[in-house]
């Protein structure tokens, strides 16, 4: 089975690709101007940030960068396309022949480029009789297009690929919004020899569903000895099936030419000088290698929060990673929202101390858990801990002494008499307190009793 994907993600620039209209959501047709409406006499001007984001993504995907790039016109007629041509990149993508390592498997990246989005069509009326209402807010918004090689072998793998890519790109350039809104995919899938294309799939869940349906459909056909036709299909979100795409009246001829209004761009120097920040999945892989933790843990740490991964690495400077992990996945995670808000050097030091104390036996595991919760709320580890200890322990000891007054008398002449108290209290407090602490407290309480 071979699956390849063509993905479109909106780049998080403030203004559109070729004009200074805002890219934010708004009432229909409010972020518009002559350029993104295609008015005669208007002209494009390229957004620097969009180009930079595109180049960062291209470099991140290990592509060979094209030194010299230019834009092209892809001409076709559709109501959502203001100029009836789209300014895209045809012969000179930003980069080619790249790859992405998905859990050790290399997925080829054929090309990466940027282009403008058309407007958004709202269909009104009965199916088959629909007219269009168009909102040009989206017209001219910058998109990055990433085309992969057909290197994926299952729908789940395809979904994981896009999910991971989104995590990485979100950190790299700041792709916003949920996975559902952001990921627009066209998929190519062949179970047998022939390739079927499914276009315009929105979101990860639908991607996996559409591909699963295709796998099942193609497999059934092959089993029945039927031939699979090479065709383009669409995914019906409601019925969760793929259907042959509506027959277009005609085959479009894009007739690509260069876009003279923009000229060309020499991007080699800039891209070579780019230092990309470490992205989550890559960081997880490094944590796994560097600290000997397992892959699942590493990913969980990084995906929970960047700050948590930072804290992990900080703690590992002083403490064995395998001792840090349980605390991290346990009380630090459960209190993370509070910790994240107030995290500073003092808090880091306190958390570090708690874990160290737990390791060397000064406090129990449960004490450590409570301590971290306290620290998260802004409290202090040492002082309050003692108070809590004192109350419960004292109560337990005195309960026993009240029930067994002869122990008090015995203990005055025989120190070993205290052992029964100690033993009972230990059982009763179920290991909350260290033995040393219990011995001390019992001694103290006995002394108090006449």
């Amino acid at each position: 089975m071979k699956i390849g994907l063509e993905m479109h993600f909106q780049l998080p620039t403030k203004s559109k690709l070729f004009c200074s209209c805002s890219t934010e959501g708004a009432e229909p047709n409010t972020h518009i101007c002559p350029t993104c409406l295609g008015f005669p006499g208007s002209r494009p001007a390229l957004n620097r940030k969009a180009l930079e984001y595109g180049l960062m993504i291209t470099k991140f995907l290990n592509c060979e960068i094209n030194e010299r790039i230019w834009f092209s016109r892809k001409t076709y007629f559709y109501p959502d396309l203001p100029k009836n041509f789209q300014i895209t990149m045809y012969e000179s993508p930003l980069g080619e022949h790249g790859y992405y390592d998905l859990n050790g498997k290399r997925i080829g990246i054929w090309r990466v480029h940027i282009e403008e989005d058309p407007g958004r069509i709202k269909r009104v009326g009965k199916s088959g009789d629909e007219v269009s209402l168009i909102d040009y807010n989206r017209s001219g918004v910058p998109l990055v297009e990433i085309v992969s090689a057909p290197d994926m072998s299952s729908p789940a793998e395809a979904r994981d690929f896009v999910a991971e890519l989104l995590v990485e790109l979100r950190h790299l350039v700041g792709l916003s919004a949920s996975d559902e809104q952001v990921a627009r995919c066209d998929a190519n899938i062949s179970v047998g020899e022939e390739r079927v294309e499914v276009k315009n799939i929105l979101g990860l869940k639908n991607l996996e569903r559409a591909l699963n349906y295709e796998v099942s459909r193609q497999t059934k056909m092959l089993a029945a000895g039927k031939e699979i036709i090479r065709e383009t299909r669409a995914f019906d979100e409601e019925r969760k099936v793929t259907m042959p795409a509506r027959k277009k009246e005609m085959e479009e001829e894009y007739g690509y030419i260069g876009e003279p209004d923009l000229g060309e761009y020499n991007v080699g120097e800039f891209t070579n000088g780019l230092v990309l920040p470490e992205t989550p999945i890559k960081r997880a892989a490094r944590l796994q290698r560097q600290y000997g933790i397992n892959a699942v843990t590493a990913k969980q740490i990084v995906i929970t929060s960047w700050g948590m991964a930072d804290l992990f690495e900080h703690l590992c400077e002083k403490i064995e990673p395998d001792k840090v992990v349980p605390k991290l996945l346990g009380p630090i995670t459960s209190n993370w929202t509070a910790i994240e808000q107030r995290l500073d050097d003092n808090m880091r030091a306190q958390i570090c101390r708690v874990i160290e104390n737990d390791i060397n036996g000064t406090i129990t595991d449960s004490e450590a858990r409570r301590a971290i919760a306290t620290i998260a709320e802004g409290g202090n580890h040492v002082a309050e801990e003692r108070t809590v200890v004192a109350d419960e322990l004292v109560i337990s000891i005195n309960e026993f002494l009240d029930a067994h007054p002869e122990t008090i008398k015995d203990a005055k002449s025989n120190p070993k008499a205290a052992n029964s108290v100690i033993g009972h209290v230990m059982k009763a407090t179920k290991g909350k307190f260290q033995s040393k602490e219990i011995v001390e407290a019992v001694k103290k309480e006995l002394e108090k009793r006449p």
Partner: protein
Amino acid sequence: MSVSIDDARLRAINDKYRIFNQLIDRESMEADDSSSFTFSAKDNLCTREFQARAGSKILEGYRPPFDATPVRKLREAGGLLLGKTNMDEFGFGTFSTNSGFDIPLNPFDTGRACGGSSGGAAAAAALIEGHVALGVSTGGSISAPASFCGVFGLTPTYGRVSRYGLIDYGNSLDKVGLLSRSMGDIKMFLPVISGSDPKDPTSCTQPRIQISQRKIKRLALPKEALANISPEVESTFRYALEKMSLELGIAVHEVSMPSLRFAMPAYYILATTEASTNLARYCGMRFGVPEKDVSQHFNDFFSGVRSECFGQEAKRRILLGTFCRMVGFRDKYYLKSLAVRQLITKEYRSVFDEHDLIVTPTMPFVAPKFDEIAKMRPLEMYSADFLTIPPNLTGLPHLSAPCGYVGPMPVGMQFVAPHWDESGLISMGEEWERVFQLKTPEVMQ
């Protein structure tokens, strides 16, 4: 200095020569005493107070929300915009006879064409004193009408003047320029309309314009330019060269430029491929003539209004341009033409190594009669541009100057300079102007 216009006279001139399709109505406008000169804008330049139709019925009703940058700059310099001048539809033509509105008439003989596609602009420059006309050239649309109407027409280097607000014909070929009876006006207003404009990226890599007088000494005359021109034009042209030699001490050397034979096909292919994409937006939506029947399938919706409103020449060029960029033909036509542009530019550069400017006649004949034009086949019309096409294809600045008359009809000669050397053209034009007896058309009383 405040400009004075006799509105009645202007209207009468326009009624006769059909220069403007939209003319200022000063009675209904506030009096503007701050204007120091008048100018006109070719109908493919956007202005807020007039419609911009680029000579095409499909844009009827389009009232732009902005001024084209060259228009804005002339206004800021104190100019009063008189109106929009008639032109060939979208610039497709050599005689302004492909206009979707009125066809302008030659100021020297109303039975003859003004030339095109900036026909109205040239007529305005010839007929209105102290007037500077904004024209646009893609393949020679400033030079041709300047030559036929006996005025100076300067086409700047591609990228010198911002094209923001210009309704596109060919984005790598269009240039906004000036037509006027006097070189003084051209010298004054070229720097005004020039300069980097962030709204047009192709205007942003120019060296700053600097007009200064210098002595032009050596001209090159490609022998290819003398083939296929009428004997009257040739003799008028040669007489002018002799005059330059005797009175201005300018030497003319014959050179050979064999790559010029590729210029016309390369030009028409690049121009029409670009135009066929520029014109795709005219489909009955958003601006121009609306297609009201939304119950039609979008392909029919689009085809209907386009077929009804585009003229024959527009359709022909759209077909040609669409074809030349289709799979299977794109390499042979479109990409090859890009290569040819570079080839011809290189050849020009080697000529400029040894010469200040290149000189040729502007057009192979004087302004033809309308009934002669009606008999011309497309290829014949395209071939009429063979002298103006090479500098336009390569984006080189050029100046058409009146150099003589055949009977009443003007003949023009064209100077071509290296990229960005408008200064050399202006020096040449001014020198020539001093020794040439310019005739103005006899305007009716």
